[in-house]
């Protein structure tokens, strides 16, 4: 296995870890968003979806395990690479003009930090049932199912919760607008025939995630999606 250790510690291998873990996280973000959008189908649909997810049992735990691994690898690599990168230029320039880098590419670490902070709050509120909105977590619907619908709607009715959620989604959107395009380059997936599409993939997926995820708190605040309790 020594070749493997050498590979992932190298500059190129470290980027492959970053890209593969990033890809897994993007996959999760998209799947999670599609699942959650069922809130627009109403209470019955999304509560049934939640039961279905939980009934996956072992498979759910395997998916959660993979996700935790991806998050750890991604954060560890992000910190390691950022430290190596700043050590590679001990004396900074007095004047710097940028040409091709973007706001997104230059703020990957900061975007990531905002996402981590959000993640802690998000898990506490909606998965573990702690935090400031604890009472909503124990709601059950008429069939005795965990009432995900009302938990979410009541949560988003709190303007502070919705606002922090939207800010986090903006940070994620910016992170992905560079990240998704970048992961193709990191993995060496390029071809003149598809490079235009790859360049668009980041901004396109990022925008999709922003619109999809923000549609939920906005719909609740606007009163289009109402609590039933």
């Amino acid at each position: 296995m020594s070749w493997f250790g050498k590979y992932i510690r190298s500059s190129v291998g470290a980027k492959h870890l970053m890209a593969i873990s990033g890809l897994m996280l993007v996959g999760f973000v998209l799947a999670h968003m599609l699942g959650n959008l069922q809130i627009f189908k109403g209470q019955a649909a999304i509560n049934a979806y939640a039961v279905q997810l939980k009934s996956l049992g072992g498979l759910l735990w395997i998916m959660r395990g993979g996700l935790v691994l991806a998050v750890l690898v991604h954060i560890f690599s992000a910190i390691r690479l950022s430290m190596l990168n700043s050590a590679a230029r001990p004396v900074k320039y007095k004047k710097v003009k940028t040409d091709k880098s973007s706001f997104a590419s230059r703020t990957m670490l900061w975007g990531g930090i905002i996402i981590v902070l959000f993640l802690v709050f998000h898990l506490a509120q909606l998965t573990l049932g702690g935090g400031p909105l604890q009472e909503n977590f124990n709601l059950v619907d008429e069939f005795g199912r965990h009432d995900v619908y009302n938990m979410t709607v009541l949560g988003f009715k709190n303007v502070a919760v919705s606002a922090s959620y939207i800010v986090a989604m903006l940070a994620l959107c910016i992170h992905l607008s560079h990240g998704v395009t970048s992961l193709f380059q990191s993995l060496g997936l390029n071809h003149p025939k598809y490079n235009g599409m790859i360049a668009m993939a980041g901004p396109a997926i990022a925008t999709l995630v922003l619109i999809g995820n923000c549609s939920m708190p906005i719909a609740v605040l606007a009163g289009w999606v109402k609590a039933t309790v």
Partner: protein
Amino acid sequence: MNLTLYVWRQKDAKDSGGFEKYTDECKDISEHMSFLELLDVVNERLIEKGKMPIAFDSDCREGICGTCSMVINGRPHGPWKKTTACQLHMRAFKDGDVIYIEPWRAKSFPVLQDLMVDRKALDDIVQAGGYISTNCGSAPDANSVQIGKEIADAAMDAAACIGCGACVAACPNASAMLFTAAKISHMNTLPQGKPEAGKRTLDMVNAMDQAGFGNCSNHLECEAACPKDIKATVIAEMNRAYAKASLTKR
């Protein structure tokens, strides 16, 4: 035109260095001069006053050797695209401009004096794999190895790299990936380079890492700064080749 220069002055590798301001020395500058000729004039005037001239590297002064390394107003080789500092002309500036001139900044490029840096790290990368092993003797018959035009063009595009180090200087992470990838693509693309492609890729990337360069974050500042217009697609090729070589080479 009359200019104000702020030039990085540093006696030797140990000196901490700092910016020196020049105004009297850069009066009546012709717009037809090249940027290096501006520095020549400033140096002559400094010598007349009994001061140390500014040390900077140059050789061909026609944009092919890659020695003239300096960051001019925040861009390696200055404001013109696809142009080395020696080919940059003073008509790129106007009367009254303030110009900052700094050396390449990277841990792997220690400053020797003023604007001169030691780019040995790039030589180390080339020595690790920038060659093909072949028997000497009489030259092979012309056209005995057939190379399609697309492949020849791709190899030539990569081979245009003059090793100036502007990619490292421009990269926010001081990464040498554009340089290394250009050398790898240049050789791996051609039939003569194929037999050693895997070993070359591993050895050159390892030499690059050893030298202490940063990593690629796909900012693409290297591509923008390259005086020879090398595209960052060569980095993607290197990333793919490195994974393949790591997974398959014994």
